[in-house]
């Protein structure tokens, strides 16, 4: 057995997904009143099309990847959290944390923390500019949304 190429293992993943999707499509309940086309038809057709396309993908020759698309050279140096993939993972975690802390902390505090924190983490060392820029953008948006547009944003622990 030869090693699967990129397209082939992508095809396997997509095929698995389409099978899963079809499984859910079959659970869409039928509507009690007669309908020429019920809610389940489209999902079923989509599932089959995706399965068929993933078979086609399996046999498609992968395009030659541009060398620059592979960030391999950078992965060797430094701890994981400073590597390219580490940056993606940490940024994702920061976004998730932001989502969960937005309401308890309030909009202004959470957004400023995220902005200042990420900028720092990405390697910007001029702290005063960082803080000033983040605060002004966040406060500007906050005032625009709450005062001008009358949209409610969570205030959290700060009094505004």
């Amino acid at each position, binding site marked *: 057995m030869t090693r699967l190429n990129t397209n082939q293992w992508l095809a396997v993943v997509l095929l698995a997904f389409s099978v899963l999707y079809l499984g859910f499509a079959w659970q869409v309940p039928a509507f009690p009143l007669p309908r020429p*086309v019920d809610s389940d038809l489209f999902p079923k057709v989509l599932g089959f099309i995706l399965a068929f396309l993933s078979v086609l993908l399996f046999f498609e020759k992968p395009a030659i990847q541009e060398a620059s698309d592979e960030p391999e050279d950078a992965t060797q140096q430094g701890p994981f959290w400073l590597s390219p993939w580490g940056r993606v993972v940490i940024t994702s975690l920061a976004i998730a944390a932001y989502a969960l802390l937005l309401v308890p902390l309030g909009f202004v505090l959470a957004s400023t923390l995220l902005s200042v924190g990420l900028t720092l983490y*990405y390697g910007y060392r001029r702290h005063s500019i960082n803080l000033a820029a983040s605060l002004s953008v*966040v406060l500007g948006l906050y005032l625009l949304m709450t005062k001008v547009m009358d949209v409610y944003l969570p205030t959290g622990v700060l009094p505004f």
Partner: protein
Amino acid sequence: MEAFNNLMYGFGIALEPINIAYVFAGVFAGTIIGMLPGLGPISALALMIPITFSMEPSSGLILMAGVYYGAIFGGSTSSILLNAPGVAGTVATSFDGYPMAKKGLAGKALAIAAYSSFVGGTVSVIFLMLVAPLLSKVAVSFGPPEYFALMVLGLTAVVSLSDKSLVKGLIAAVIGVMISIVGIDLQTGTERFTFGSAHLLDGIDFLVVALGIFALAEVFYMLLRGGGGKEAPRNAIGSLKLSRPEMREIAGPVGRSSVLGFFTGVLPGAGATIGSFLGYSMEKRIAKDGDTFGQGNIKGVAAPEAANNAACTGSFVPLLTLGVPGSGTTAVLLGALLVMGINPGPMMIEQRPDVFWGVVASMYIGNIFLLVLNLPLIPLIAKILDLPRPLLLSMILIFCMIGVYGLSFSVFDLLLLLGFGLIGLGMRLFGFPAAPLILALILGDLMEESMRRALQISGGDWGIFLEKPISLALLAVALFSLSAPVIKKRLKREVIDT
């Protein structure tokens, strides 16, 4: 001549100092709202209803219309600079606008967007003025079978939008349709793929997907590529000036897309987003250098920008002549008009000429304001690209998240945004094009809905799609546009063979 007299009458109203002030305030506010992702014209207008309540109806509508087309005008800015579409109608602008900005041509891209928007807006006001009453017939002639055919035609663009691998483009499109049908099925009230979550009942908002797959994925991609400054040339804005050949090059696309966009806007339910996609894919097919679309082709900025502004104006046709809102935004406008004591409908042009012609005239003025306002602002706004890379990245993130939260006030949507950002990153790394997914996301559920509605009316008879002339014609065009490249290739081969 009559149109001219009416227009003069309209200008008489629109040029009153107070109304000039309203036009300016409207387009200015609209531009800002449009630039900020997530702060769309819908919520802005809904929030303005109390303000316009006590106004003269013509002034109120002049102000609100200004916000609406101003937002579509301004939406291109963040699409081009940050790959973060400010409003749904400007997603297609980012396909070529953002690559241009990356090449250091941000200024030129923004200038093209401004000129094209201006032309699109102005051409469509002329149409609105001359043929609005006649067009109300066109708007109602589109029933469910016709919409189905239109959506099918729109979806054939997937072929031209998937540049490297057709299979990957189609896979992206199928996934786009899959996303579009999440939520309550309007035809039956059945929940599909909600997994019991109330947050998914209304489906997944288009802008959450677009911001995730474009803006957030772009941030992730930059992080992955080291985040260094190697891609950002200094003085990244470039010149605003267009050369004569460039002007000539975009003239055709802008003209065609203005007309196409206007008629798309006239159809209730189609609107600026679909208009801009149709304009983009039409030009990509027509252009000799169509394969460079997506890499920063100026026509790829001009076409969707002309189309979305034209469609925005076009959407006033069903609103004002039928009293029927064609989109969420015009639905809010209709509500506002009712509050002001105006009943839009077939009789409105005769009963309240001041409102109709006043607004039409104000649109000419508003478009000029937008151009004059935006051109000098371009170098200023484009300075955002000069920010140090780390600061710029976290600003884009903040903008996306505030935008998404402002749409639905839902923490759940923020997590969805993250999910789509990661999916978008994966798609980029593995060479799946994002445009077909977005296109299918917009058209997919409309296609399903209109197909099933048509069959419900016909009692399950599929012939309904072929019996209606408009639907038949659209389906034929769709078939032709799919088969044309194949036939062309075969013809070429035969020529070579003989």
